[in-house]
């Protein structure tokens, strides 16, 4: 399972260093914060950016500290009781509730959800 461990570690890197950087990023600047906000489709106030940059950088510092621990050969824990995925029978259990679901949609037409035009 060594592969799994390494892959999980790569994951952690990916998670905490989303800017495709292999080197640990110790501090984020304004453009990093803007990019992360854009990827997450979060609207943020320009004046708050320095604070976000600081708090996010602090998290990275913590991760940096954790990276010093040797986690080689340790399988990432998915569940404290080592539970695994339960599977369900392949049968149709849901009925059509379109009207109910669409009653809270901003705009629909002929059963179709309408959203602002997406240009391919």
């Amino acid at each position: 399972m060594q592969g799994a461990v390494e892959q999980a570690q790569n994951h952690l890197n990916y998670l905490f260093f989303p800017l495709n950087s292999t080197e640990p990023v110790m501090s984020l600047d304004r453009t990093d914060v803007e990019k992360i906000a854009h990827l997450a489709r979060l609207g943020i106030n320009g004046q708050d950016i320095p604070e976000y940059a600081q708090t996010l950088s602090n998290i990275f510092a913590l991760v940096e500290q954790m990276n010093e621990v040797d986690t080689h050969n340790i399988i990432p824990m998915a569940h404290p009781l080592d539970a695994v995925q339960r599977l369900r029978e392949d049968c149709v259990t849901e009925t059509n509730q379109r009207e109910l679901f669409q009653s809270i949609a901003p705009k629909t037409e002929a059963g179709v959800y309408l959203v602002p035009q997406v240009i391919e």
Partner: protein
Amino acid sequence: MEWEVVIGLEIHAQLATKSKIFSGASTQYGAQPNTQACAVDLGFPGVLPVLNQEAVKMAIKFGLAVGAELTPRSVFERKNYFYPDLPKGYQISQFELPVVGKGELTIELEDGTEKVIGITRAHLEEDAGKSMHGNFGGHTGVDLNRAGTPLLEIVSEPDMSSAKEAVAYMKKIHALVRYIDICDGNMQEGSFRCDANVSVRSMGQKELGTRAELKNINSFRNVERGINVEVERQIELLEEGGTVVQETRLYDADKNETRSMRSKEEANDYRYFPDPDLLPLVLEESMIESIRRSLPELPNAKRDRFVQEFKLSDYDATVLTSTRELADYYESALKQAKPSDPKLCANWVTGTLSAALNKADLDITESPVDAAKFAGLLSRIGDNTISGNIAKKVFEALWHGEGDSADTIIEAQGLKQVTDAGAIEAIVDEVIAKCPDQVADYRGGKEQIIGFLVGQVMQASKGKANPAQVNEVLRKKLTS
């Protein structure tokens, strides 16, 4: 400069489950929009995905069929991007630990040689909904019926070096998923889709060239044309001193060209991470074993058996086993025909029957002449009741429903072959008397004229004379 083409394919096969991969909504195709999209598919707050065991079994089936390593503990991850047909803002997929690992598939090339294509991985994921542009007064319409339909994404190694090889591989996967009954393979309905990673490099160069990902090539024909036109574009670009950009390109079949689809710089920033709503998928050895035992005979094994058991040529065996349905039809007809002649049956299935099916654009399962009727026809050819030419007439009649068996048609239309020696001799004499010039030619050494004379006799007998017998009688009379 000499260029080498490098192609890898990503094939999405919709798994033929009744319900979705993470919800109990129906996967039936063609329903009214959004009538099969439940709270899980719509990404409502508080819902949780529960994995469909049938989808898992189908993935295992595929893995076993391509001799792949199965991952004992695979992980579902979130692939994050924003698009209206993906209500959750992420697609549940697999990334680092896919359920099916490395495998391989042998394809046959046109020159009869074989090539092994590596399969990098195959992973389970959910399909997105459908976006519709254009008809909604400045809006985009979204139908989420397809959202959550189980997909097996099959990723190949960049092992193919021409569009033809790519098509051969795609056809092989297409046949395989239908053989093992995990996907209906319907390309019109989008149950079987393909993207191609295409790059070129100068001959002998070790490292791969920059690739473009080709989309919208969802037919065998378009895979071939799309790849060829993309290869041409890349070579032209490089020979002019340009560079290929890594991007997604859309194939336009009408214009037969590819064009850049999007140049969003963060397009591939999917930020995968393990989905906290789903635990690792652990494959029990007992489950794998029971699936292994239930696997049907696979295409290559079936082909080899056809060659051995029925003494068919490689070519015939390959054609007959190209789909499970065709192979079943062949075996069923062969079994019912008396006498049972494998080569005759193969010729008729790959010849007359296939041509008729092609012409009518029908699948073997839709053939108006079923295996039993077909066997009846073969029996009458086999026991010399009718000649091959007359058999074609009988086939036509069966095809058009003019009788419910070959026998009734032969009887009703008086097509029984004339094998009575006296009757044949009489016709032969008649023809010899009518064609003195040709007879003289034959006797003068122009032996090939016999074909003409046989034809005359056949015509005079309305096709009912036994051609071999005619030939014999003619030769005897002409040399006497």
